[in-house]
């Protein structure tokens, strides 16, 4: 999937950009600026949103009502971005996000999608055998948990608000945010307290 682009494709891209540049339609400065702003988005934003939701019920309500407004409060510019939906896990319901038709992903709060999210295997299997896919991440849902797979097909982008793990009572927002991985925000993993910390 993530084989490097072929030299002829790289050359083709440069010819296309040259043709567009010659017409004044794009510039190297615009490309650099756009790439820099895309590079700045990272799962740390989503992780901070989740940690805050674990601590602050009002924030949690805002995030569930209007994810984009919550992201804006985190300093993310959502202008021109698709609406952001937040999927609330409960002790009996776990969410998993996939886009079977392409690779829709909440880039504003998670950054670039990883290669596996865009792979044919993940896109195809997450809807049909989601528990087998979770098992490949070493994720087993507690007994009695129903799994809800969210196929991101249209205008929203979706992130998961996972359950706060046990053993984190009294933790600060920063410390909680460090538990929330990109995988947990997609739903292939659950936030885990490292065993060394849990023993403290």
């Amino acid at each position: 999937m993530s084989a490097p682009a072929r030299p002829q494709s790289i050359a083709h891209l440069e010819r296309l950009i040259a043709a567009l540049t010659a017409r004044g339609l794009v510039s190297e400065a615009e490309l650099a600026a756009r790439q820099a702003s895309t590079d700045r988005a990272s799962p740390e934003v989503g992780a901070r949103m989740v940690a805050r939701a674990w601590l602050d019920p009002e924030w949690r309500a805002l995030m569930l009502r209007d994810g984009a407004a919550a992201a804006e409060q985190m300093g993310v510019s959502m202008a021109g971005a698709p609406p952001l939906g937040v999927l609330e896990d409960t002790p009996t319901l776990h969410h998993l996000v996939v886009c079977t038709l392409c690779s829709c992903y909440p880039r504003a709060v998670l950054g670039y999608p990883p290669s596996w999210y865009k792979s044919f295997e993940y896109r195809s299997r997450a809807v049909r055998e989601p528990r087998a896919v979770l098992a490949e991440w070493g994720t087993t849902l507690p007994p009695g948990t129903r799994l809800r797979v969210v196929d991101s097909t249209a205008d929203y982008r979706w992130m998961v608000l996972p359950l706060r793990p046990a053993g984190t009572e009294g933790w600060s927002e920063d410390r909680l945010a460090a538990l929330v991985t990109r995988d947990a925000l997609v739903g292939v993993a659950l936030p885990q307290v490292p065993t060394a910390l849990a023993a403290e």
Partner: protein
Amino acid sequence: MTEARFAPGDRVRVRYDWPEQRPQPNGLPSAHIRTPHYLRGRLGTVQAVLGSFANPEDLAFARPAPKRALYHVLFDQPPIWNEGAPGDSLLVEIFEHWLEPLESQEQAA
């Protein structure tokens, strides 16, 4: 905002239609569909009205794109492939023109 025909809790059926099977004479696709193949003809329940958005089927061909109501529709997962765990589900964004009310269909049948 476009008036939404369905409300949360409504039972709906996804249209059993395959526009992608009708390509242009030159063989290129004549349609761009955001309703996954595995849901065509399936029964679900409207979970939420997500708003109204320009119809991607028009946007894809740079045509004027009227807004359409968009729903989050919940489906039981196991019946779709006859596998999976009971209680597991699929939640998918589907535009209104792909949904039919279940009651009127059943009355017609």
